[in-house]
């Protein structure tokens, strides 16, 4: 099918896994000399689609190359974090994700059949989006593809396989294979969003390095009528699967994700067979209230995983984002979420550079900030993995001691680690931040992601702070703000002024509390909604300097 037809079917239920998109010959393929485009994005998965949409929304024409002509096969990534949903809101498809997804925020951890720990990922109200939704990756890609179809600046080329790349000083040259044969294309910048086995990375002779964990896991996605709350349930050593761990999670359409730890010695080919999987699922159900429920196997996969990353996410004119740049274990939902957050960080910077509002050096900060975030994700992921899959006798000894103590001692429950779930990184050391000159309370330090809060608009409608932020910079001001406020410009980027009490009302007082607002307080927010500066009594020159700092112009 044609991508435009998909957009036209919006609102109807679509079987996204079965869609096959048409290959179209691009006029670029007939060009005598390679055509130069501003931006080429390689890989139309969640990361590449997000980046392409962001760039197009900012007015940058994008060529999006994909070596296939389908969306995700199988559920794959299913947990999408609050921050990712807020990014999808900015990209114009957040509602579709949340409406279809199963919202959740509570996780429970069991030792054998006893609950030893539970966590609430969003214990406070006053946020537009839930802590998480569970949603099959094919829906996420489907909704992103529908959004991309509505943006004429996105030129999505299916069955375009990158087979060569040459990074030059002022552009990158791509060799691309298609059903009509090869052609060449040049781009000012290339974003490699082509997954853990990135062809671009391989073609450039680069590596992603780290630790591979010696354990195997089985994902069984099962369709069944099962009555259980929309919570993340994790068992250590359950009676129905002794000595191993099990994770149970609800998805839309009555599909349940069950993740069984198998151990390193399991035979992946054997364990993929339904006759091996079905008894495992039956054993789990036999220990629930749903003993005899019918179920059907939707999708299964046996996997191992690694925690790894590339040394640098930027190589001249080529930028790596998502799994091509870094990999984590699935415990913590830090894979797809961090990839979309990479795109969120890269989109506005690449647009600003291509549109002449910032120098190329701004892109160095993409690499620096997201390498920092990847380290944080890898650290959390590695710790969870060491707990779930102890690597040594002594590691196992302490793991078991923690679990044993957690039955009776509250302190030990905080050590139980079944995955610390994805939260956005606070870019506290970013060179784009302007250091505080006055004391502030609370979490909204420079580099932090702007926290949401309920607001009302002048016409009385209720809204949310994040939904009122601009596409460029936003200056959030308590009261009238500094003299000369109206004369400050965003150095070519839009600058939205959001005056609390005038443009928005802090209806529940949460905005003042979360941002420690006092009369005259001002926050400068980046286009990706991170705080980059804050002032108690700013003058226009301070704000202007902070904007220059945030564009790496200082």
């Amino acid at each position, binding site marked *: 099918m044609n991508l435009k037809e998909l957009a036209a079917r919006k609102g109807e239920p679509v079987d996204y896994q079965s869609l096959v998109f048409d290959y179209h010959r691009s006029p670029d393929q007939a060009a005598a000399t390679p055509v130069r485009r501003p931006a080429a994005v390689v890989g139309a998965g969640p990361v590449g689609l997000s980046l392409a949409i962001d760039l197009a929304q900012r007015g940058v024409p994008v060529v999006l190359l994909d070596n296939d002509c389908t969306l995700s096969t199988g559920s794959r990534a299913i947990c999408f974090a609050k921050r990712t949903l807020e990014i999808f809101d900015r990209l114009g498809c957040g509602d579709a994700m949340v409406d279809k997804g199963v919202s959740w925020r509570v996780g429970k951890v069991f030792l054998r059949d006893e609950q030893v720990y539970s966590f609430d990922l969003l214990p406070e109200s006053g946020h537009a989006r839930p802590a998480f939704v569970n949603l099959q990756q094919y829906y996420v890609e489907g909704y992103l593809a529908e959004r991309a179809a509505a943006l004429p600046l996105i030129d999505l080329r299916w069955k375009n396989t990158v087979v060569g790349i040459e990074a030059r000083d002022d552009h990158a040259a791509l060799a691309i294979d298609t059903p009509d044969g090869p052609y060449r294309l040049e781009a000012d910048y290339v974003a490699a969003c082509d997954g853990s086995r990135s062809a671009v990375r391989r073609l450039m002779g680069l590596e992603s390095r780290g630790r591979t964990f010696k354990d195997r896991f089985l994902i069984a996605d099962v369709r069944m009528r099962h009555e259980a709350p929309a919570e993340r349930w994790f068992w250590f050593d359950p009676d129905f699967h002794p000595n191993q761990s099990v994770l149970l999670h609800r998805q839309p359409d009555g599909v349940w994700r069950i993740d069984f730890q198998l151990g390193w010695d399991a035979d992946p080919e054997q364990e993929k067979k339904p006759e091996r999987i079905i008894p495992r699922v039956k054993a789990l159900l036999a220990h629930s209230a749903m003993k005899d429920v019918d179920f059907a196997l939707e999708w299964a996969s046996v996997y191992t995983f690694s925690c790894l990353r590339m040394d640098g996410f930027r190589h001249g004119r080529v930028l790596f984002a998502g799994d091509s740049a870094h990999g984590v274990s699935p415990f913590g939902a830090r894979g797809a979420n961090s990839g979309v957050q990479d795109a969120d960080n890269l989109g506005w910077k690449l647009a600003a550079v291509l549109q002449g509002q910032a120098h190329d050096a701004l892109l160095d900060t993409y690499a620096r900030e997201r390498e920092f975030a990847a380290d944080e994700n890898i650290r959390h992921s590695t710790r969870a993995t060491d707990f779930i899959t102890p690597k040594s006798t002594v590691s196992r000894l302490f793991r078991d*001691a923690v679990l044993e103590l957690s039955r009776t001692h509250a302190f030990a429950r905080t050590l139980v680690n079944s995955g610390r779930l994805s939260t956005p990184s606070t870019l506290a050391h970013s060179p784009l931040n302007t250091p505080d000159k006055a004391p502030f309370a609370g979490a909204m330090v420079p580099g932090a992601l702007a926290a949401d809060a309920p607001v009302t608009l002048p016409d009385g409608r209720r809204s949310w702070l994040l939904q009122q932020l601009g596409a460029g910079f936003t200056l959030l001001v308590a009261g009238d703000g500094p003299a000369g406020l109206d004369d400050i410009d965003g150095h070519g980027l839009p600058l939205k002024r959001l005056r609390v009490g005038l443009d928005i009302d802090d209806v529940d007082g949460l905005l003042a509390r979360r941002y420690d607002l006092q009369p005259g307080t001002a926050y400068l927010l980046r286009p990706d909604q991170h705080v980059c500066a804050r002032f108690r009594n700013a003058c226009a020159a301070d704000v202007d300097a902070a904007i220059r700092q945030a564009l790496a112009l200082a």
Partner: protein
Amino acid sequence: MELITAPNLEAADDFYEALIDAHRDLDADRSQALNARLILLLANHIGSQRVLLDALAAARGAAR
């Protein structure tokens, strides 16, 4: 707060006897498990990351 390495036990010999007694009749694996639980309980009681890191370093023979 710093890791205390000067004598600090209220009843040193009594504690030592109780420690050995706690392991009575346990095989090596169970003794190890008991020690692990004991370390975790004491670590939580101490709480201070700095003191715990000093203690780990001292136990490894790297301190001072």
